[in-house]
């Protein structure tokens, strides 16, 4: 199976306190100051890579690749490090579409990815359900729409049925749902897809137990990742409509947390919840 995993470099959410928004007109900042922030791969995309690797290997002998996983990102040269990280984890190839953040919104990214899909020819596009920076959760669904492919969002479990279809368990509002989807398809994943039983794929014996979470890249794999192919394409060369449909007008940091109060009795707590917080 050939799988394409779109991948995004995001600001490390653990350093969210380092985010600074310079104050501009009307109290809104023109941009978010990113200097000094640490960046990492979007965790949901890392889960997608893990799931993609499990779908293209025999888990008892993961060094022999039985399929192909290509990771793709849209961004500047600094994103190459993120791609190299995914290659070290086990992805086979990488593509970067050269663009700056200011040139992009979710729709442009989806259009660019659709072009990359046409060039790479995957059977499956697997990606995080959302990125942890903008949280818009739009790229996967928009890409499926552009491709005219079926999509399953919020996957927590994927079974390769071996006959050109996947059985996907997804989290919905009212519980879990099992969806059979014909390939080619777009699937967006949650963290649980990287848990021990997150992926079932025939070459891996049912008795094999994966460790929970994304696999670690040993040093030899990190070194070999430098030699794996990383192709850079220009956004302009893909022939996509690059008109922004989302414009950021300004930014402001969330209000600082107010100091708490201690209550003496349950009655006082209920009174405050009801009359001050109006939560009940």
């Amino acid at each position: 199976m050939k799988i394409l995993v779109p991948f995004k470099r995001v600001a490390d959410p653990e350093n969210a306190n380092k985010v600074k928004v310079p104050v501009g007109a009307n109290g809104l900042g023109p941009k978010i100051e990113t200097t000094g922030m640490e960046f990492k791969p979007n965790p949901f995309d890392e889960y997608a890579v893990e799931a993609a690797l499990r779908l293209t290997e025999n888990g008892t002998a993961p060094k022999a690749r039985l399929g192909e996983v290509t990771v793709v990102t849209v961004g500047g040269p600094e994103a190459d490090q993120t791609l190299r990280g995914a290659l070290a984890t086990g992805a086979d190839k990488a593509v970067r579409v050269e663009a700056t953040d200011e040139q992009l919104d979710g729709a442009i990214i989806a259009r660019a990815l659709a072009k990359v899909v046409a060039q790479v020819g995957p059977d499956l596009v697997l990606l995080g359900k959302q990125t942890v920076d903008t949280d818009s959760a739009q790229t996967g669904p928009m890409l499926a729409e552009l491709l005219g492919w079926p999509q399953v969002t919020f996957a927590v479990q994927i079974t390769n049925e071996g006959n050109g279809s996947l059985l996907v368990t997804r989290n919905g509002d009212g519980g879990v749902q099992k969806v059979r989807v014909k390939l080619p398809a777009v699937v967006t994943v949650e963290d649980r897809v990287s848990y021990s039983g997150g992926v079932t794929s025939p070459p891996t014996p049912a008795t094999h137990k994966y460790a929970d979470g994304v696999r670690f890249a040993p040093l030899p794999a990190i070194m070999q990742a430098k030699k794996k192919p990383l192709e850079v394409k220009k956004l302009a060369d893909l022939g996509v409509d690059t008109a922004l449909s989302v414009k950021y007008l300004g930014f402001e940091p969330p209000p600082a947390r107010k100091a708490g109060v201690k209550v003496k009795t349950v009655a006082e707590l209920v009174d405050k919840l009801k009359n001050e917080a109006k939560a009940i």
Partner: protein
Amino acid sequence: MPNPLYESEIHARLREQARRFAKKEIAPNAHAWEEAGIFPRDLLPKLAAAGIMGVGYPEAVGGGGGDLSHVLAVAEELVVHGESVGTVVGSGSHGIALPPIIRGGTPAQIDRFVRPVMAGQKISALAITEPSGGSDVASLQTRAVRDGDHYVIDGDKTFITSGTRADVVTVAVRTGGEGHGGISMIVVEKGTPGFTVGKKLEKMGWWASDTAELRFENCRVPAANLIGEENAGFLAIMMNFATERLMLAGNCVAIAELAHRKAIEYAKERAAFGKSLSGFQVVRHKLADMASKLAAARALTNEVVQRHTQGEQVASLAAMAKNVATDMVTEVCDQAVQIHGGYGYMREYVVERLYRDARLYPIGGGTREIMNEIISKFEGY
């Protein structure tokens, strides 16, 4: 934190892996393991599966490649993000136990003693120090007498890291006459009749790492376990010392990094007299001094590690790096406790534990005074 002069993208990738591992597998249990004085044995296969155990060892012996700079980068991430020095040093005892076997051992010895450790199945330890002497290796008294296809070992070893659990112990023994020319290295396996583990020693720090006394009484070990040539062990021990001292200097940098971070965090959170502690110049300057000394020790350690990996003989420089780093970690941990005030004296705060852990470093792997003697000798004073 990592310096691009000394660290490549490879180090950065590797640090990410080690950080993720530490947060997932060590940090959640760090305090409990340290308080219980237990080393979690099942961490070893996990370290091996994640490719961390083999960092710094050739792929030909089951390792993952890389050099001492990679070892230090990984250890720093494990300490800073796992927050348990005992766990990290306990899982790293092979760092001193295996190199003599890898350098001087036969392929059969490497298969038997090195590979299972790299795979996380066995634990290795290095036994040099004796109750009657530590740094004075040339005077060691444990004897190994050849008897047919065996050596018969008699003597005691002490302060052996991972000693209570070790399956494979690289032991320094006297096979020849007095002095450094009569010393050999031999591997003793757990279960060998006559080899007993005395007791688990109660220590000031490094609680999650066990330390033991080992006893050899009429202990018959196959002659095939001798590493390299008979009576040629002293050089192997001395070569190992330089690496060990740089690893210890790296530990000091890592511990100080963590203590400094904890101190900053506390100084920003804690309020006194209507402002945060970091609002006081005296506290900010303490933090600035800590950061400066840390940067200096880190720079020297990095430089000596690089010169070492490039093949330079660094016995004197390694001793300097160790002393600079141990002085630094002693002061940084002391100041981190000071900034924490009463809480810094409480066991539930990490800095209290780091303060105790740090006290080992001017002693272990050769005392501060021995380091100065080495420097004096090499510099020809």
